[in-house]
């Protein structure tokens, strides 16, 4: 069959990280091609390379579209050839109508004056194509996510799409909405539209895809033709996760001590939508010296769980109890949670963890200013001493603790965040994606610090999307999906396959 797209030997490096390593992808004209892989495997980066978000020249390798070599310098270039990406976060303007959204930046106009009758006529035609029965003047805001997704596809069709790329199109959709969307994809395929679908839902992938490409650690693992051979989910999962866990994690004496933290019947509702439950009746515990992992896909609610525990920083109508060493803990405000012995190292260190324009020492002492002050006056000598001691202990590579944090590398920034929380002398640390965007060497250092903390008898809760990391570090792993815990695995019984199948099974049953 004729190839519409060929990506050859794509290698893309970010400072310190090789996101794509010699990836090749071939898409036949008129097929549905599924791209699967774990979070962080490089799917999104690959699509950004394809669409020109990462401009030509910022990566190695070649892209051929329709037999011609492409050199996109921006997303506009790829769109003009008919390559359209629909992102997980929809790019619609909520307060504009369907018609206005469809032709945004591509208005049906003469000399800058919009031709509304024409706009509405074309909108109706496009909506009919995607099977959406809504008046063109409806505000996008008033549509559900499923229908918004259809609007996005109609928008793509309005641009004479030749290759449609959908990033997790059904992640936020209900079962019936997903069916509608997948049927539409099959229908578009009948009309000659080629699509690439990125998805974690393997049953859906198996249903619609003609070809499945599996990416792992920035490299293509396998390409499966679903018409030539039967493809089982087990086969896909094995290829998605199968890799050897060599010495990437420092050795640790595993020892679980007394009961430290107990959370029972924790329920949280969405901060804006009162009726949407985000965390569903979660109970778990952490023993002293234990590293407990929480696994789950993006959107499972792991960060929301952590933030709601830490001073009710997320959600509303929170219920449930937290106790430390058998005593009930007040976690209703952040300062109470810190005072009670909790610390939360945020997922997004730049947005939530650090004050980038401030110096290292000011960041380190921020959560425990009482520790370096008396009656409200900061002892700056003491502050410098504290910062200096953490610089040494954590091996923060910087000429001086007066350096602004913005100038540090990701790994060193993360060590500053860790220092800040260690200075509050916590009993339990919640680490949310502690090694995101950090190079391999710094990761190992962070792991060593985690081990040291557990050796001191502290409890560590580690949230991570990198399963090998969870498996390599945790004593126990809770598997989370759609706001609830769907399984608990001990270190010996945990494997990537088991975690994935717990999640996949829950999705199919739920």
């Amino acid at each position: 069959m004729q190839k519409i797209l060929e990506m050859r030997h794509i290698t893309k490096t970010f400072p310190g990280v090789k996101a794509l390593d010699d990836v090749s992808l071939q898409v036949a004209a008129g097929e549905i091609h599924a791209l699967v892989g774990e979070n962080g495997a490089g799917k999104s980066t690959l699509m950004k390379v394809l669409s020109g978000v990462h401009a030509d020249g910022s990566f190695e390798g070649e892209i051929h579209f329709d037999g011609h070599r492409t050199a996109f310098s921006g997303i506009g270039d790829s769109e003009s050839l008919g390559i359209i990406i629909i992102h997980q976060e929809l790019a619609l303007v909520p307060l504009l109508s369907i018609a206005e959204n469809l032709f945004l930046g591509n208005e049906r106009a003469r000399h800058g004056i919009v031709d509304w009758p024409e706009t509405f006529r074309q909108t109706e035609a496009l909506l009919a194509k995607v099977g959406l029965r809504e008046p063109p003047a409806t505000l996008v805001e008033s549509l559900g996510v499923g229908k918004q997704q259809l609007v996005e596809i109609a928008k793509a069709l309005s641009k004479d799409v030749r290759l449609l790329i959908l990033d997790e199109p059904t992640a936020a959709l209900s079962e019936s909405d997903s069916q509608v969307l997948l049927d539409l994809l099959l229908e578009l395929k009948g009309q000659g539209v080629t699509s690439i679908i990125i998805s974690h839902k393997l049953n859906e992938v198996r249903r619609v895809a003609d070809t499945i490409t599996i990416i792992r650690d920035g490299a293509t693992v396998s390409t499966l033709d679903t018409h030539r051979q039967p493809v089982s989910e087990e086969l896909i999962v094995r290829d998605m996760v199968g890799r050897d866990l060599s010495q990437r994690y420092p050795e640790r004496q595993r020892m679980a001590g007394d009961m430290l933290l107990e959370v029972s019947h924790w329920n949280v509702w969405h901060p804006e939508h009162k009726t949407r439950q985000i965390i569903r009746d979660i109970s778990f515990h952490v023993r002293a010296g234990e590293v407990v992992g929480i696994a789950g896909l993006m959107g499972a609610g792991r960060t929301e769980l952590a933030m709601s525990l830490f001073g009710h920083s997320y959600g509303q109508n929170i219920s449930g109890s937290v106790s430390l060493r058998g005593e009930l803990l007040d976690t209703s405000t952040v300062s109470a949670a810190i005072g009670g012995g909790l610390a939360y190292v945020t997922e997004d260190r730049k947005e939530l963890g650090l004050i980038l324009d401030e110096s290292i020492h000011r960041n380190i002492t921020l959560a425990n200013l009482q520790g370096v002050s008396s009656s409200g006056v900061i002892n700056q000598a003491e502050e410098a001493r504290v910062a200096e001691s953490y610089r040494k202990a954590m091996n923060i590579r910087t000429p001086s603790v007066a350096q602004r944090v913005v100038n540090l590398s990701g790994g060193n920034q993360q060590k500053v965040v860790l220092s800040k929380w260690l200075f509050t002398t916590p009993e339990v640390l919640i680490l949310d994606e502690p090694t995101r965007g950090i190079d391999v060497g710094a990761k190992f250092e962070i792991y060593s610090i985690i081990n040291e903390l557990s050796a001191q008898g502290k409890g560590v809760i580690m949230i991570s999307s990198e399963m090998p990391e969870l498996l390599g570090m945790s004593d126990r792993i809770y598997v989370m999906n759609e706001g609830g815990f769907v399984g608990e695995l001990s270190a010996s019984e945990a494997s990537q396959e088991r975690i994935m199948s717990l999640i996949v099974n829950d999705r199919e049953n739920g």
Partner: protein
Amino acid sequence: MSEIPTSSAGSAAGGMSQYLRNHMRDYGLLFALIAIMFFFQVVTDGTLLKPVNITNLFLQNSYIIIMALGMLIVIVGGNIDLSVGSVMGFIGALSAVMIVNLDVPVAATIPICLLAGGLIGAAQGYWIAYWKIPSFIVTLAGMLVFRGLSLWLLEGQSVGPFPKSFQLLSTGFVPDVFGVGRPNVTALAVGALAALAIVYMGLRKRQRNSAYGIVDEPLLVFIARNAVISGALVFVAYKLSTFRGLPNVLVTMGVLTVIYAFVTEHTTVGRRIYALGGNEKAAKLSGIRTERLTFLTFVNMGVLAALAGLIFAARLNTATPKAGFAVELDVIAAVFIGGASMSGGVGMIVGAVVGAFIMGVMNNGMSIMGIGIDYQQVIKGLVLLAAVIFDVYNKQKQR
């Protein structure tokens, strides 16, 4: 990654120019003030630095500087207050009505007015902090409301004059405790003591920082900076002593500046305000009660605006409906010239005060030269723009 050694191992000259380049903004501001003063001193044939004019400079600008202290804190916290001019006018009117029309004693009026200022700040801060309504909008509303309320309070008339005891707030001078009179030995002594204190504290800080290896300014720069500052202090004190001595407002202003500089640089509250403006979400997740802190910055601003209103009314010896009109813009300009960042988290008390002096000296100098108010506005606008462009340029270069 380039590893820079902690100690000043590099060549002294290289280290120094490097240091100056990195701290262009801090020293540039001081240089700018000196250059502007020098310029006007020359073009006004020495009028600028005559004792009477120096005294006037302080009297004319004291209320701007006092409000700039509060405004700096508001802006560092990531907000802005457009209402301070109106609040200042309103409090001036309130004091006039109380003292002149209602015969309330001065000693009671002053605390009541300060309290009223605090309440006004609280009323505005409440919506900003707890309802997350943008400060621009809340204080824009406050600006209109209190402008209107002063008109209503004064019934469109000017109210005055004030009794002598109230005027002392602004036009009074500290009597010479040494009894010499002229030159005023008290003024000289205070000036000399302040200079000594600055040098002493600078030395102590330097010692401590070098003990912890925090990169410090080169010795030569340190000496030069301290020489300039303490020299200027003694010079001004000498000039003042040959006229009428230390104006009361200068003392108020000086004490407030020292207190606010200390609070912002050395206390936990100050540190938290910088954190709040630098990254509100991170501050909140570090256990800082960001709402309450934002609220308090506005209460503080209200009190300082009230104080400024009293001083202004005392100086004019009358409260007019026009008092404080458009003053908020001068105050905000002073803070931004002083190096504060619109996005919050950056700025220093000393910078704001120097910024206010730059504006003040330009106003004063241009008036002496007889430049029309039209050109004055244009020049002031351009200076503000230049200062901010300089900031942005410096920041980009550092990246």
